[in-house]
């Protein structure tokens, strides 16, 4: 070390003599703080205020400052023990000295399970098992666990003996599968019990634990069932002020489409109608009703009263004899035709003979006038 030191000094003098710029020496480099593990160098000396305040000179000042610091740092790095790997020289960095906070807390060691505690007590050591086991039946090495274990087992156990004390019609394979399922469930239960014990959560030894993390809906369903389990089916149970009803109870109603062909709807409506108790067709009654209304209206018009429509005063008895006669004969009657805007006494040629047909019939809908009515045009008393 001493040799290289002196030779280095000689070199330094030489290089300094020849070219000043190539110096690697940094003045006051022991005043700097180094953290080689982080490649960090800190210069705690006060900065030159005149230069830092001057926006023109600050860049070069900072540049020089940086250059000196980095040179000092890398001088130290080059002094570190290094090794050569594939034509590259690597310097081994020491551990960082600056203490930085961790990302996550220190992990706690896993608490021992019930079995582990017992094994430790008894001094039972876990012996590492080989993956492959020699099987005499199959005459080859068979994996004890993992990939292709079950295939090998199936190969071996293609037939199962029914034990002498067992039911001959029992499915032994199903029984074996059931046993395996139970084993898996038992293991899972024990694992969860271990976890519960470690987290100091109480688990009952018999029975099922409640679901601690049930969703809001599940809890309200549970409440609902509890309430309805009374003699009065929950009718008189007091409710909390903000208690909301459970979603999803009650009959579900299927809502049909509003688009598409109306065939289904039509069919259903016709079915309903067919099921209904329809009154038998009273044509005469209908005709008379119509006549009455018309006459009333006509009367009132003549006499100057209000035309009411179906519901007329005096029971609608303002009907003249002639009107009756003319209707029976099939001629129209005086008065305005209630139709498609052709009314108002515009007399037209022959009276409409088909008046009868158009009254009543299956198309009678509610209170409205029957559809055919509108075609009656009146030519007064005309015959």
């Amino acid at each position, binding site marked *: 070390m001493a040799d290289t030191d002196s030779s*280095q000094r000689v*070199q*330094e003098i*030489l*290089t300094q003599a020849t070219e000043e710029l*190539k*110096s*690697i020496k940094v003045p006051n480099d022991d005043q700097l703080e180094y953290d080689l*593990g*982080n*490649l*960090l*160098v*800190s*210069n*705690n*000396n*006060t*900065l030159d205020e005149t230069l*830092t305040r001057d926006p023109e000179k*600050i*860049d070069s000042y*900072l*540049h020089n*400052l*940086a*250059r000196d*610091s*980095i*040179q000092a*740092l*890398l*001088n130290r*790095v*080059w*002094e570190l023990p*290094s*090794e050569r790997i594939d034509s*590259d*020289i*690597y*310097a*081994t*960095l020491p*551990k*960082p000295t*600056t203490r*930085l*906070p*961790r*990302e*996550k*807390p*220190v*992990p*706690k060691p*896993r608490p021992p399970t019930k079995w582990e505690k017992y094994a430790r007590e008894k001094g039972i050591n876990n012996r590492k098992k080989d993956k492959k086991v020699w099987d005499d039946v199959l005459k080859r090495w068979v994996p004890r666990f993992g990939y292709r274990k079950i295939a090998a087992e199936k190969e071996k156990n293609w037939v199962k003996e029914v034990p002498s004390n067992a039911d001959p019609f029992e499915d032994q394979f199903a029984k074996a599968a059931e046993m395996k399922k139970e084993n898996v469930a038992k293991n899972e239960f024990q694992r*969860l019990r271990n*976890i519960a014990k*470690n987290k100091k959560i109480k688990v009952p030894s018999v029975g099922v634990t409640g679901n601690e993390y049930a969703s809001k809906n599940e809890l309200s369903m549970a409440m609902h069932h509890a309430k309805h389990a009374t003699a009065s089916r929950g009718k008189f149970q007091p409710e909390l002020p903000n208690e909301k009803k459970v979603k999803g109870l009650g009959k579900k109603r299927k809502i049909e489409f509003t688009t598409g062909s109306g065939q289904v709807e039509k069919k259903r409506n016709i079915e309903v109608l067919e099921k209904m108790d329809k009154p038998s067709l009273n044509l005469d009654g209908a005709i008379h009703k119509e006549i009455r209304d018309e006459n009333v209206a006509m009367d009132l018009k003549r006499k100057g009263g209000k035309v009411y429509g179906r519901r007329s005063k005096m029971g609608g008895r303002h009907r003249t004899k002639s009107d009756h006669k003319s209707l029976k004969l099939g001629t129209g009657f005086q008065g305005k035709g209630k139709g498609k805007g052709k009314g108002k006494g515009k007399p037209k040629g022959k009276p409409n003979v088909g008046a009868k047909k158009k009254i009543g019939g299956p198309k009678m809908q509610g209170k409205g006038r029957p559809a055919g009515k509108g075609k009656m045009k009146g030519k007064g008393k005309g015959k």
Partner: protein
Amino acid sequence: MGVIQRVVKPRNSRSKRALEKREPKNIENTKQCLFFVGKKASEEMRRCLRDLYSLRKHHSLHLSRKHPDMAPCVDILPVERLGQKHDASLFCYVARTKKHQNNMVIGRMFNHHLLDLIEVDVSDFRSLAKFNNPKGAEGTKPCLTFAGPGWEDDAALRTLKSLLLDLFRGVEATAVRLQGFELALQFVAVDSKTVMMRGYSIHLKKSGLRTPRIELDLIGPCMTLHLQRSRLASDDLMKRACRQPKQVKANRVKNISKDVFGSRLGRIHMTSQDLGGLQTRKLKGLKKVEDGDGADGGGGGGGGGGEEEQMELE
């Protein structure tokens, strides 16, 4: 606690590995950093964020969506949630507020809860793109230098130093390729409220000696940070966060030394033995004579009961 201690076990090894990556470990992963923009940020600030992101390319996530409801100084919960989602414990957030056009918040978390954060106002920003010199490869470990007395004196600056160190130091490296130094970052505390950042590329020049001469070339990003609000960690939280596991601490091996021949030696410390009281075979010839002629005293062994004995270890 371990992935197996979960009530719902992971279904396959892929999910198991993902969970194991996120759980606390003795030797931790390199911290992930989130770079994201809040409600409205100027073009300059967005470029600044991108530059910082490129300095820490390998362990950071640049979120492309704007997060208009985030205000880390006011409400840290959304940031914590983001950090938990991406498993990131550092974040750098840029926004435009009424008071400050160029607001930036740098913070870090411990166990997905806020540890500390510092809000700075960025001015005189010169982007990496502005400098035309060739830059080093992305992801190189930079050399960091902090200048100015403020880094030690001021509490906020001390936290900022620690934050900047965390942000820019990259991976914790055990070995470094000597030809591979490419980037140098300088942070100068001009006064207790102002920090100047400069980025340089390192050129190793011949010096006639083994150690090269360093030349620096300004490549950016350059900016001036004005410290605003800060939320520093309480002492005990910081202590808890800095706690290292026992396994990571160096084990000092005591009492083992090697002699010239390479055999391992240890030292046994004995209590002082009174060899005069040892029981041995009684030999008539060695019986003590009254006139004090006997050369050896009664009993066996010579030399004084040494306090120490060096024994050879197998």
